[in-house]
């Protein structure tokens, strides 16, 4: 037993030793740590960006060991050291990776990165990976790196571990931050798991789903399948072998024929706005197996139009190929390919040009050989079978005149050479010929009648005006809305909507331009911010060379073309549109041409333009055409435009619309419409832009959602602010075109305000330096003063006439107003008062009875304050004074009252050009009938327009009645209509004459309202009253009334009654909408006068 035991023990020890010996001889590498990697991608807008070697940065593997060697202390980043688990060791974080990528992969110096924020809130304000600004997003392992409260972790506290993957995205446009379609694209597997690498077998379809992971930044991520997206694949990113389109569920099925490592990818996309807001996606696919011959998908018969022009006098031999493997070189002129038309042949045209057209050109025995079958030219014939007849009669010898000869053929019929030879001697002869291949543009107009879009346009403008009540600087709810409403004529340019907008803009420009501190630039990288604003300002008659303290136009010259082109082609396009909107001069006279040259350089082979890539997109092509219209006299521009128009025609879909990427969008149609109208092409009837009887105008109207009076970005995608803005100004452009008005951006028909150029002797377009300017232009001020049509001649009768002014600018620094009023004999001045909104001065006046002159002056003699008007204006009018006149002993039946002179002064130096503004008083006067007894005058305050709650069949009439007790009941009766007028204490107080209002049938002639025989006055009964703004007639104006205006407009509950229309339509336009709600709010809060009161006090009576 002992021996046996010893034996067993020996065996056991031997076994142990053997194991150790085996271990000892194994390569040590077998026990080495497996390297750990993280993966990082970086993109700019729709595409991945390239590293220092020009390779796209797509899930580049970075070893954690490499990151471990990065010492944050040496970068001055010790504040961002992070010990998550408190074990005394600092973690490797995303910040380490950023440093590595920035320095090693991009070859940049970390000092170029602008960092702010503290630990846990590190912020990259610019410079990271070479990006110029902070428009960055990033995802970590396919999701927004948020804690349980949705708060995002910053790079310094994202601890990296093996196989983590990170995407860093930069966007040109900040709208990615709030856009609902913003996000990161990924591919997911059959379990809906995000993967960045896949495997597949040759010949078997790999099925991946393309999703967009959105949300983040404070909320849960959402995953949205991307339908209709193009997924590319190839062995190099950006060099696609082919592509597939995702189905409705975002699924892409890709079959690989050869074993290799492939990439699959897609580009980033646009969101609700016109900006790219989502990232590109990519994944690798390792394909194994034997190479297989892929099934050739059945090629659809692709067709296009091609025109072949053959000059007179040439014997010719035309060699045209088309075969499965050589689709790109179809025609040859001599040895050089002259086109790269992509086998999409529908129609050839052989056009024989005579030197002296229409001289006959004889082409005897011209034969066309296809598939070795000789054929003849037939004018307008359609090819059948293998016979491609180009002759009027097969096999005949014909005489042909100059003209266009058309045949139709498809790809399968072109798979062998086609010959056109001189058979005169029976021998095909190779001869050099000229063949021009171009789009057929022979037709111009179809039989369509241009459609009337005014109803939709008006409804859309009304919606914009009522929902965007206070437009401000910005892409949304800003300049585009202003442009639409101004060029669409929805508001007059001096409407408060625009003047208030301008006031906001002045404040914004002063603040922003000072902050950017770049010669009037509103953004250090985006010249389009200046351009967009200049276009909008021009549309409302504001000169962009003097906006607050800044010259927005000078920014182009002062910052140079490099600033303009920072956004690629977009910058020059919009710079040209902006500069030409008011023919602005630039101090650098080469700026425009630099823009043009840059644009022409960027034209693609297909004739269009794009922001990036090699295929034209309709939006940019349309915008470029809009920008080039004023330079069509340049030969190169004209040629480029012709190609671009042809390109757009080619791109048009059978729906009439245009694809942006893989989807039709209303914005694309909008840009094409604006472009075509600028170039004098009717987008609704021109045959080049009507496909299967659908025009691009039809296409854009397909996106209109009538219930909302808004437009969709894509069909059935729901309405969208940006789509509505663009569609609206496109319809404005079209409407202007059919009404023979200037094109959208040609604002030579706008009356521009003059500008007060601040004192600046340096001619440097900077704010006032107090040294004197070369030229001074001043505000245009106009006095509005409308005496009543009639007053009672009874001695002691008083009446009021308010004095309003238009063109007032609180920023101008007015110091004093003076005015002389001619008062007729027999009338005196009882009192002059300053309007409650006029501040900064004190009122003095004197009435000289002998001369009939009332002199009024308003200023602050002690402090020399700037005069300002704090109240809201109505229709551009601000009230200055109210004059109460008194009838004493008037001998005549009519008297004239008027302002004979008025000025606004800046300072006391009367010799200086800029010392004063002479106010235009040409219309500030009127004749007043002196009447005795009861007499009526009437004005129409407004007529409904069927848009918002006030029907066209109704109008509001205000009457003034002399010699009655204010408030007596008055009933109008003309035998057909019986109307009880409502007494208005407010208008009476304003004019000093008993005033009433009523909503009446709009067909009643105004002259009927001044006939005393049509009225019944009851001196024993009080009239019912109207209090403007008091919708519920409870005697109090408050939030309930403002809400009523909103609810009426939203169609909540019943339509307003006539009494409610009178009470609620406080701004006295043709509609009840949210403007009235705001009017009630302003009246309540600011004490502002309702527009309807101002209107009643300033309208000329209709019985004059």
């Amino acid at each position, binding site marked *: 037993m002992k021996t046996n035991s010893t034996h067993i023990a020996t065996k056991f020890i031997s076994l142990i030793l053997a194991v150790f010996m085996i271990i000892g001889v194994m390569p040590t590498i077998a026990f080495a740590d497996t390297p750990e990697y993280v993966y990082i991608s970086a993109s700019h807008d729709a595409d991945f960006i390239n590293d220092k070697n020009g390779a796209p940065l797509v899930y580049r593997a970075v070893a954690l060991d490499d990151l471990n060697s990065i010492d944050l202390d040496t970068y001055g980043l010790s504040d961002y050291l992070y010990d998550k688990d408190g074990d005394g060791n600092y973690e490797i974080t995303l910040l380490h990776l950023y440093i590595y990528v920035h320095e090693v992969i991009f070859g940049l110096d970390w000092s170029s990165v602008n960092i702010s924020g503290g630990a846990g809130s590190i912020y990259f304000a610019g410079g990271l990976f070479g990006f110029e600004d902070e428009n960055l997003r990033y995802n970590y392992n396919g999701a927004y790196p948020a804690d349980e409260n949705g708060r995002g972790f910053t790079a310094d506290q994202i601890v990296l571990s093996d196989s983590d993957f990170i995407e860093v995205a930069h966007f040109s446009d900040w709208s990615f931050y709030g856009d609902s379609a913003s996000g990161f694209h990924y591919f997911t597997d059959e379990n809906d798991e995000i993967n960045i690498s896949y495997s597949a077998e040759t010949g078997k379809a790999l099925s991946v789903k393309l999703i967009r992971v959105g949300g983040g930044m404070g909320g849960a991520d959402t995953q949205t399948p991307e339908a209709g997206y193009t997924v590319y694949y190839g062995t190099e990113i950006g060099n696609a072998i082919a592509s597939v389109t995702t189905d409705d569920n975002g699924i892409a099925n890709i079959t690989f024929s050869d074993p290799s490592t492939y990439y699959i990818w897609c580009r980033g996309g646009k969101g609700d706005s016109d900006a790219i807001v989502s990232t590109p996606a990519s994944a690798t696919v390792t394909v194994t197996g034997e190479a297989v011959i892929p099934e050739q998908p059945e090629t659809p018969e692709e067709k296009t139009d091609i025109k072949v022009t053959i000059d007179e006098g040439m014997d010719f031999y035309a060699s045209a190929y088309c075969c499965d493997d050589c689709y790109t070189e179809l025609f040859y002129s001599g040895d050089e390919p002259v086109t790269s038309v992509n086998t999409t042949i529908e129609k050839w045209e052989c056009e024989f040009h005579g030197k002296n057209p229409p001289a006959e050109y004889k082409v005897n025995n011209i034969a066309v050989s296809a598939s070795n079958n000789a054929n003849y030219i037939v004018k307008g014939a359609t090819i059948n079978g293998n016979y491609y007849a180009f002759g009027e009669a097969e096999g005949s010898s014909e005489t042909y005149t100059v003209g266009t000869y058309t045949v139709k053929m498809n790809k399968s019929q072109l798979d062998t050479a086609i010959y056109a030879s001189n058979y005169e001697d029976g021998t095909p002869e190779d001869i050099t010929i000229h063949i021009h291949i171009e789009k057929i543009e022979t037709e111009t107009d179809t039989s369509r009648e241009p459609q009337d879009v005014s109803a939709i346009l008006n409804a859309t403008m009304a919606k914009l005006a009522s929902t965007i009540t206070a437009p401000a600087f910005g892409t949304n709810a800003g300049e585009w809305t202003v442009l639409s409403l101004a060029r669409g004529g929805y508001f007059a340019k001096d409407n408060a909507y625009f003047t208030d907008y301008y006031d906001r803009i002045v404040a914004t420009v002063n603040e922003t331009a000072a902050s950017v501190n770049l010669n009037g630039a509103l953004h250090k990288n985006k010249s389009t911010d200046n351009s967009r604003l200049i276009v909008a300002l021009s549309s409302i008659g504001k000169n962009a060379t003097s906006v607050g303290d800044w010259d927005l136009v000078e920014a182009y010259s002062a910052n140079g073309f490099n600033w303009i082109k920072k956004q690629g082609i977009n910058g020059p396009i919009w710079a040209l549109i902006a500069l030409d909107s008011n023919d602005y001069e630039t101090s650098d006279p080469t700026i425009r041409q630099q823009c043009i040259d840059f644009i022409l350089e960027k034209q693609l082979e297909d004739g269009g333009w794009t922001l990036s890539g090699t295929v034209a997109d309709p939006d940019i092509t349309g915008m470029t055409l809009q920008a080039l219209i004023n330079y069509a006299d340049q030969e190169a521009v004209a040629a480029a435009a012709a190609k671009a128009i042809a390109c757009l025609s080619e791109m048009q879909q059978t729906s009439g619309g245009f694809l942006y990427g893989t989807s039709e969008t209303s914005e694309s149609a909008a840009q094409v419409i604006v472009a075509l109208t600028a170039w004098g092409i009717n987008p609704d009837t021109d045959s080049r832009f009507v496909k299967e009887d659908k025009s691009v105008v039809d296409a854009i109207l397909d996106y209109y959602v009538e219930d909302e009076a808004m437009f969709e970005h894509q069909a059935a995608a729901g309405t969208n602010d940006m789509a509505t803005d663009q569609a609206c100004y496109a319809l404005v452009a079209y409407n202007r075109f059919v009404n023979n008005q200037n094109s959208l951006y040609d604002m030579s028909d706008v009356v521009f305000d003059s500008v007060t150029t601040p004192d600046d002797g340096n001619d440097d377009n900077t704010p006032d330096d107090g040294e004197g300017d070369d030229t001074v232009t001043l505000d245009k001020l106009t006095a509005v003063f409308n005496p009543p049509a009639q007053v009672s001649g009874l001695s002691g009768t008083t009446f009021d006439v308010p004095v309003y002014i238009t063109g007032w600018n609180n920023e101008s620094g007015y110091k004093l107003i003076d005015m002389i009023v001619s008062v007729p004999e027999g009338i005196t001045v009882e009192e002059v008062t300053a309007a409650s909104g006029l501040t900064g001065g004190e009122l003095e006046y004197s009435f000289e009875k002998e001369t009939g002159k009332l002199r009024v002056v308003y200023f602050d003699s002690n402090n020399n304050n700037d005069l300002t008007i704090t109240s809201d204006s109505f229709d551009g009018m601000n009230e200055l004074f109210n004059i109460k006149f008194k009838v004493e002993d008037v001998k005549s039946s009519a008297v004239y009252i008027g302002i004979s002179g008025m000025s606004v002064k800046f300072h006391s130096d009367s010799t200086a050009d800029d010392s004063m503004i002479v106010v235009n008083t040409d219309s500030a006067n009127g004749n007043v009938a002196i009447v005795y007894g009861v007499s009526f005058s009437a004005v129409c305050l407004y007529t409904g327009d069927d848009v918002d709650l006030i029907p066209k069949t109704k109008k509001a009439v205000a009457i003034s009645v002399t010699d009655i007790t204010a408030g007596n009941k008055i009933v109008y009766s003309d035998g057909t209509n019986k109307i009880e007028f409502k007494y208005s204490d407010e208008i009476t107080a304003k004019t000093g004459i008993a005033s009433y209002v009523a909503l009446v049938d709009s067909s009643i002639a105004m002259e009927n309202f001044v006939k005393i025989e049509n009225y019944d006055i009851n001196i024993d009964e009080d009239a019912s009253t109207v209090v403007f703004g008091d919708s*519920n007639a*409870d005697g109090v104006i*408050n939030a309930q009334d403002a809400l009523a205006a*909103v609810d009426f407009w939203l169609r909540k*509950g019943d339509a307003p009654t006539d009494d409610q229309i009178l009470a609620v339509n406080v701004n006295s336009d043709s509609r009840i909408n*949210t403007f009235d*709600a705001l009017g009630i709010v302003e009246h309540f*809060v600011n004490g502002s006068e309702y527009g309807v009161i101002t209107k009643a006090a300033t309208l000329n009576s209709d019985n004059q």
Partner: protein
Amino acid sequence: MSRKEKASKKKQRIIILLVIILLLLLLTLFLFVFKRDNDNSVISEPTLTVETPQKLSVAETDTFSLDVLISSLGEALYPAASMSISFDPSTLEFLGVEEGNVFVHNYGGESRVDRLLPDWSVNIEQSNKSGLINIMYLDITGGRKSFGKDLLAEDYNVVLRLRFRLRGSARVGDIYDIIVEDAVFAASDETQSLAMTTGTLKIINSKIVIGE
């Protein structure tokens, strides 16, 4: 005193004692019920209160603010609200409105936040000129940004704060009334509005007492 008399007196004492006990019970019950009713009235009736501050020192140079509180709201949504509050502009300078802590909803808003502080409109210059502070909130979306009872809580009932400064004319012993002249929390269905004019919104005004 006979035994019978003694017994009768004892009986009387017992009855008196019982009556007293009964009266005390009734009094207690009455007070309880009254207090409960009183409490209920505070809770159930929407009341807008302009807070009365502690006595202010005449030497007070700092600004001070008065909370405007709402006790409760009805079942409706209130897309608009306004109040007109008078004061003596010769003794007080109105400096503006500060945010309270009563939110409005933000249904379907662009931001991810589902509630917002209301943006009140007020004109300081006009208020000081007229002595009447007109403040209004209007949800122009017609209801997506409304006041609602679900956003009120015990410590979240400050609608807004009025900031004032004492003018130099203030004297010890002055009492300045801050009076709500009109107020409404407006619902689209006006019958559900809470309005001072209809008595559906109670008002408690403020007094500012000036001390040493």
